[in-house]
């Protein structure tokens, strides 16, 4: 602390105003390393601040400015930013002295009560939601301490012709700052400019693509245009504008996913966020193909609707879906299998999602509006088309998964929860398809059954990670998902009950 204090005096003794203006938005492009990847400071700052506070701003300061200023606290910079730590669990709120309706608490309270949090954590034997939230609050506290002790921000340095990263605390040494002062009146700015130049010279500026990716927010644009496309399809007789808007949506999503592939160097299907992203896109593409093949616009409307749902989840369900790009666990580091097995399975879920949307649409229309018998049967036929695509893709995906498992784990099938649930999905749809040819599943049962069958997809996709959370595939575990899934099941079951109760049976 003594060393840092003397460095503070050295840093800010001259030209204090200029040094205080060091933390500007220009730092957004500064190269840094976090979580095993090199990325612009903007990304690190935004991800860290969002993790601690749930927000990407502190007062009127951008994430980068706030992150920079908090880091400078390590050098004794007299700065008090109101950092509010996100807390969701009611019992954790109680031990932190929060009101039930508060969602965040001042970091200084968390710091003062960290010993209490540690004691509570040590006493929890079960890994319940309380313990998980305590762990999260502790991690948020630790992240804040890491920033304010200048450990989280890493700075590139040249070492024997290679770039290595050191923490800000190690970088801003007295000797280095004193030496820089002989070269520039703004020694800190000088050192950072120099570090960035060295990095660009050796590693290039490809890391900046991540800044473009996050700043352009192409998925948000895709969502807005998808909404416009749906309205155009429904509201306009001329389908050309809607078709163009749909193509623009697809183009934007391809551009965003390509950027993500270039940044991560792998197929964009490695965590929940990416699978949601890919399934929305996949459903839209598949729906366009079926629309062309069957000359029926209902498919593309369903595709757009599902795509919007996925894009909304990506935008608003950040507690459940983590948009950041992280390195993969070793077993998944195989691009061939990622881009074949996982994409096929996700595409199958996309096709089944189309059947789910159409089935629910038909269920609601039939219950609350009027649908003729021929219209109903036509709707069933549309659903059947989607299921055919889904089942073929899912069989292929499950088998490719078996081949990958055989290739990398030594067995074709091991009853791992993820692979077992993908098989359950296949069996559920196969049971419905087989039953459709018997007297057991006439059209009026087929529709609600298909609507309900998608719950098995949701269980395989989200439930394994959020509810079962065990086995070799549990790479996407995070909190909040169980609540989402539970709500989905309740809504879906209610819809089925409402749609079937008291309804006249169609032949």
């Amino acid at each position, binding site marked *: 602390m003594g060393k840092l204090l003397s460095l503070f005096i050295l840093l800010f003794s001259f030209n204090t105003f200029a040094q205080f203006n060091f933390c500007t938005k220009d730092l957004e492009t500064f190269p840094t390393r976090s979580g095993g990847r090199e990325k612009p400071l903007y990304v690190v700052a935004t991800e860290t601040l969002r993790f601690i506070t749930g927000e990407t701003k502190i007062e009127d300061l951008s994430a980068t400015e706030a992150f920079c200023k908090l880091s400078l606290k390590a050098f004794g910079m007299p700065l008090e930013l109101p950092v509010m730590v996100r807390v969701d669990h009611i019992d954790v709120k109680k031990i932190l002295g929060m009101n039930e309706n508060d969602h965040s608490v001042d970091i200084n309270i968390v710091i003062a009560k960290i010993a209490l949090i540690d004691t509570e954590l040590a006493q929890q034997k079960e890994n319940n939601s309380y313990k998980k939230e305590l762990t999260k609050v502790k991690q948020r506290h630790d992240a804040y301490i890491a920033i304010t002790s200048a450990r989280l921000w890493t700075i590139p340095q040249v070492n024997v012709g290679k770039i290595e*990263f050191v923490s800000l605390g190690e970088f801003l040494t007295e000797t280095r700052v004193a030496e820089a002062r002989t070269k520039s009146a703004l020694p800190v700015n000088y050192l950072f400019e120099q570090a960035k130049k060295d990095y660009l010279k050796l590693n290039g500026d490809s890391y900046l693509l991540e800044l473009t990716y996050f700043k352009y927010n192409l998925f948000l644009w895709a969502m807005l245009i998808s909404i416009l496309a749906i309205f155009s399809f429904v509201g306009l007789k001329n389908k050309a504008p809607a078709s163009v808007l749909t193509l623009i949506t697809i183009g934007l999503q391809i551009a965003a996913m390509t950027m993500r592939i270039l940044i991560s160097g792998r197929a964009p299907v490695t965590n929940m966020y990416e699978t949601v992203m890919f399934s929305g896109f996949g459903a839209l593409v598949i729906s366009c193909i079926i629309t062309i093949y069957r000359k029926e616009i209902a498919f593309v409307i369903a595709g757009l609707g599902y795509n919007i749902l996925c894009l909304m989840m990506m935008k608003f369900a950040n507690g459940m879906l983590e948009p950041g790009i992280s390195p993969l666990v070793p077993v998944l580091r195989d691009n061939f299998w990622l881009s074949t097995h996982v994409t096929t399975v996700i595409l199958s879920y996309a096709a089944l999602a189309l059947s789910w949307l159409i089935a629910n649409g038909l269920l609601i229309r039939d219950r609350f509006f009027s649908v003729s018998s021929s219209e109903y049967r036509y709707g069933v036929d549309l659903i059947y088309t989607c299921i055919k695509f889904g089942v073929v893709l899912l*069989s292929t995906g499950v088998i490719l998964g078996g081949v990958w498992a*055989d290739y990398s784990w030594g067995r074709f*099938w091991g*009853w791992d929860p993820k692979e077992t649930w993908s098989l359950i999905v296949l069996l559920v749809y196969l049971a419905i398809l087989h039953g459709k040819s018997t007297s057991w599943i006439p059209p009026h049962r087929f529709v609600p059954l298909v609507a309900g069958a998608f719950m098995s997809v949701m269980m395989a996709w989200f439930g394994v990670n959020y509810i079962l959370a*065990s086995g070799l595939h549990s790479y996407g575990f995070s909190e909040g998902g169980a609540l989402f899934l539970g709500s989905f099941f309740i809504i879906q079951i209610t819809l089925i009950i409402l749609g079937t109760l008291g309804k006249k049976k169609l032949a």
Partner: protein
Amino acid sequence: MDKLKAYYRKTELFFGNLKFAVVIITLFAICLGYGTFMESYHGTEYANRLIYKSFFFMAIQFCMFLSILFATLIRLPPRKHLYGFYVIHAGLITLFLGSFITYTSGIDGTITLAPNLAGRQIQLTNDEFRIEFPTKGKEVTVELPFVSGPKDLKMDYEGIKLKTFLPFAKDELNWLPMKIKNESQSSSRYRIYNDNFGEFITLSLHPLSDFNNTITMGPLNVHYMPTSLANCFMANTPDGLIIWNGETSQCISPVVSEIKRRKHQSGKTIAEVNFNGTLVAFLPEMSPLPLNSQMELNENSPFRIFSKKLFEKAPHLFLFGKFVAFYNKDSKSWEGSAVEINNEVILPWMGFKARLIEHKTDAYATMTPVFVKPIQENGQLIAGDMKALKIEIDDQDFWVRSTEPVAYNQNNERIRMEIGKKVLTLPYELILDQFKMDTDPGTTNPASFESYVTLFKGNKGSEKHHIFMNNPLKYDNFTFYQASYFQTQQGPYGSVLSVNFDPGRFWKYLGALLLVLGSIWHYYLRRKHLAKPGAQNG
């Protein structure tokens, strides 16, 4: 013949019926769903034992096989619009046959490689009970049943009866009655706790008990002694010496005048005490053991001597059943108090208290394995990770646990018994030259696990191989995959490879291919669609 045909026709109609297919597919899916929850709560092995490798589940799969087979046969001779259907079902039949070949003839296990040591033993999934008779040079192995709950066995090998097998067990405290009540072989259970910490401890003086008479809890040392020693302990003598006769449980706390001290030829001080007429000689600064007539330490003597002063520096708690004693540094004196069941004594360290829970002189505390459903948390079993087998030798029951082997002397022969995984020995060896774990830059997150191994093929020489995720070693129809790793006590890492021999692989791949191609063909042949209501045909 006609009757036989009629029976076949009935069978065909029953199993080939679409409704039967719906029922069996649904039942299969329900079992799978239940299995995934069981796996999540109780771990992979429990789910395998309960569901995936159970007879019931095998029977469902067999019914599915029959359904697929008869659904195909019932639709013969071939019809053009069903070509895709035939291919799908042929694929499924092939897939089932491939899986059956793997199940019956495949090998799936792990090989653990310590650094620079040869490994050739594959550990398989099934458990076995091994009995070694070293003098006869004989070993008996008995495969234990792959069950999910307790299983009574009626097996007898060389006079050893195998009685009950527990596939998942935990040790539970059990009080076994003693033939004669004995104060000096008592057992007690206490709770030591403060506001932040609490632990139950069980201590015993009985020779057959699984519990010790000393225990360490962080900086606190707990000693359990016979009740009769308590008085001597509290006697306030300047030397603080206590002499104890383990056979009679009598003790004395001699005062200075009762201790005769003399110098031995070696220069050490010998203390002599008259203990009820017996002269007992000690080297008090050296050992609690008394000396024999040759002035050597006598381990067989029932007498022991120790000085309380040795226990005044660090926290030592002395428990004598219903009496508790400790040295209080603040008052600089030994303090003691009687404690009844469910009463507590305040200790002089960090607000700790000692509560007496149980104290018995007519029964001794021991640990007995009991069946428990395993509990999985964060991918690790936190309960039930032990297997236990109850055996009977010489009319006495014993438990053999998977955690450690058991030795027993029968007719002057030392028998060794253990529960372990079934082992397969390879005709060649692998040596782990190096295990490497790379991490993502700047983090401790693993990025890759890699084993550099040398394969010794006997007369055929040796080869170097590099095994890592998605890059297995294939040799002699076996495939070796990077599965896990561990750190040895010496520091370097060892590697665990999963080993697999799968004669059904080709058939499973062929079946899978037929299934996918058949599905595409099937839906291509059935591509007719309903026209949109109100739309004109054409």
